[in-house]
Structure formats: C-alpha cells, structure tokens
C-alpha cells in the first residue's frame, strides 16, 4: 500500500495501519538512535518514544513534505534531548571504556577494538556533529536533506561534518594506517 495512503489512514484513526507505515523505518530509526546513544537499551527506549510521538503527532503532518524527513526530525530531537538529560550518566561512561584487549594480530580482536574506539569517539563528539555524521555516513542523506532534518543551513551541515570527520580521522589514525 502506498505510503501516503497509509498516512491518511492513520490520520483518520486507524491504528492498525501505523505499524505497516513504520515497518520500512524501524531498523533505520533504531540504527540512527543507536549511533546517537551507543547503548542498546537506550536506543530501544528512544525508538519506542519516536514511534509513539509520531503516532500522536501524525495529524499535524502535511503531505506536502517528506515523511522520512519528518520522522527523522522527531528522532534526532528526541535523541538530542535524551543526551542533554543523560550527560553524566555513569552507564554511558562505562559503555565507552576501551577494552583491555591484548591487541594481538587476531583480526576479530582488532575489529572489536576498532568498534570500541569508534564508539568512544562518537560519544565524545558534540551531539549535533554526531547527528550530521550519522545522517551522512550511515543513513546516506544528502547535505540538503540533512539541513532539512536538523533545521540548519547547508554551510553548517558541511562544517559540522568536516569537524566530525577530523575527530574520527585523528581517533582512528592507527587503524587507518594499516589499510594502505
């Protein structure tokens, strides 16, 4: 069933249509939110919040704009609010401590170490930079789409992306050297 038709049905109060409407976005929203908070339980909780909020506010959605932009905007705003509330959460701090691996030649250990380094670096990025980096590198949105979702200028998107990439480059430098 076409997306717009599903939206119209949900707007008329048909709850059953909501799950079908959200089906293509479940994993994407969860992936985005996981990238923002790097904690499975928090990502799950946030995903549920996003979907609940989307259902409650869908009557305000205008068909003229893009649904995924609208949905992503809800997701990123909730994620940013969540970070503001949980800035000193000890759970999150614990999650991003690097593992005490021997750093041996085993590639799966290296992979795990690399993932932990990525998690640690992402957690330290300013939330707005993290969001832009995820939208570009993981979700594949264009600069224009990111600007629409986050509600800022194109230049701001580009500068945040640049600084985020610089931070990642510095943090991952030892791992990138071996890829020549």
């Amino acid at each position, binding site marked *: 069933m076409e997306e717009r038709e599903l939206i119209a049905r949900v707007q008329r109060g048909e709850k059953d249509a909501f799950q079908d409407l959200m089906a293509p976005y479940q994993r994407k929203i969860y992936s985005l939110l996981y990238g923002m908070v790097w904690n499975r339980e928090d990502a799950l909780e946030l995903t549920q919040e996003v979907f609940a909020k989307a259902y409650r506010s869908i009557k305000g959605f205008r068909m003229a704009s893009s649904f995924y932009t609208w949905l992503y905007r809800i997701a990123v705003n909730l994620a940013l609010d969540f970070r503001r509330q949980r800035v000193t959460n000890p759970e999150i701090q614990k999650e991003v401590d690097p593992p005490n691996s021997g750093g041996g030649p085993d590639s799966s250990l290296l992979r795990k170490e690399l993932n932990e380094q990525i998690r640690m670096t992402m957690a330290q990025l300013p939330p707005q930079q993290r969001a832009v980096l995820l939208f570009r590198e993981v979700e594949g949105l264009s600069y224009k789409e990111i600007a629409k979702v986050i509600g800022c200028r*194109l230049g701001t998107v580009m500068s945040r992306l640049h600084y985020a990439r610089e931070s990642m480059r510095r943090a991952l430098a030892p791992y990138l050297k071996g890829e020549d």
Partner: protein
Amino acid sequence: MKKLLLIGIVSTLFMAILSSVALGEEVGIGVRVILASHQEKAPDARLQDIQKNLDTLNYSSYQLLQERSFLLAQGQSGQLPLAGNKELHVKLLQEQGGTAEIAVEILQGGKRIFKTTAKLKKGGTLLIGGPKHEEGVLILAIAAQAP
C-alpha cells in the same frame, strides 16, 4: 586537631588573597576578527573551539582574519586595526575574583561609533558583530584568557 584546622584555614585564606592579587595583576584578553558570510567555503579549523558560539548566528561560512592576544593591566588598553578604516580598542577596567571588566570601542576614521562595557569570566565569549566587510560581516570574538 584544632591546630591543624587553624593552619588549614589560614593557609586557604592566604592562598585566596594571593591568587586574587595575582589575578588582579594582568589579564589576557583574546580577540579574534572573523569574517562571516553566506558563501559556501571550507570551514576554518582555527575556529573549531568557538564553532558552537558562532552557530547561533546562522551564517554559512566563518573565516578567521586576525587574532591577537593582549596582556593588560588595570587601566591599560590594546588597539587592533580593522578593515574599513576602523579600529578596535580594548581596555581592562578592573579584574576581580576571576572576572575581567572591559571596555570595547570601535572607532571609524578616528571617531568612536560603538562602545560597550562588559564583565567576562573565563570561558565566556563576547561576540560583537555586524560591521559590513566585503561579501559578509565582521564578528569580533572577545574572551578573557587564563593568566
């Protein structure tokens, strides 16, 4: 025990007085002259530390044109020429308890067109913006630095 407590209190007071005197000596005032425009240019990495402050202004591009640090004692001022026949004067009025009170003036053709007095704590940034320059506007980022 009481003696130790007394020694501790006296030492703390002494250090507080010493530090306040030391801070009252000279204060570092950092000034950055920035060109803000709506052109799409690569971000200036030298402004990364204040990017969050600049983002409020919603320009697409910020380029650092000049950067100066003044070490000022009370009553001293520093000058910096600006584009468009303008000049910036920064004067330290007083320093107390980690807060620097400064007077900032912008002159054009020798005539004062703007003056502000402000109190700056370390970590705070005062942005003065608006004077037109080339394809954008000038923004002066003024901050009190650690001695």
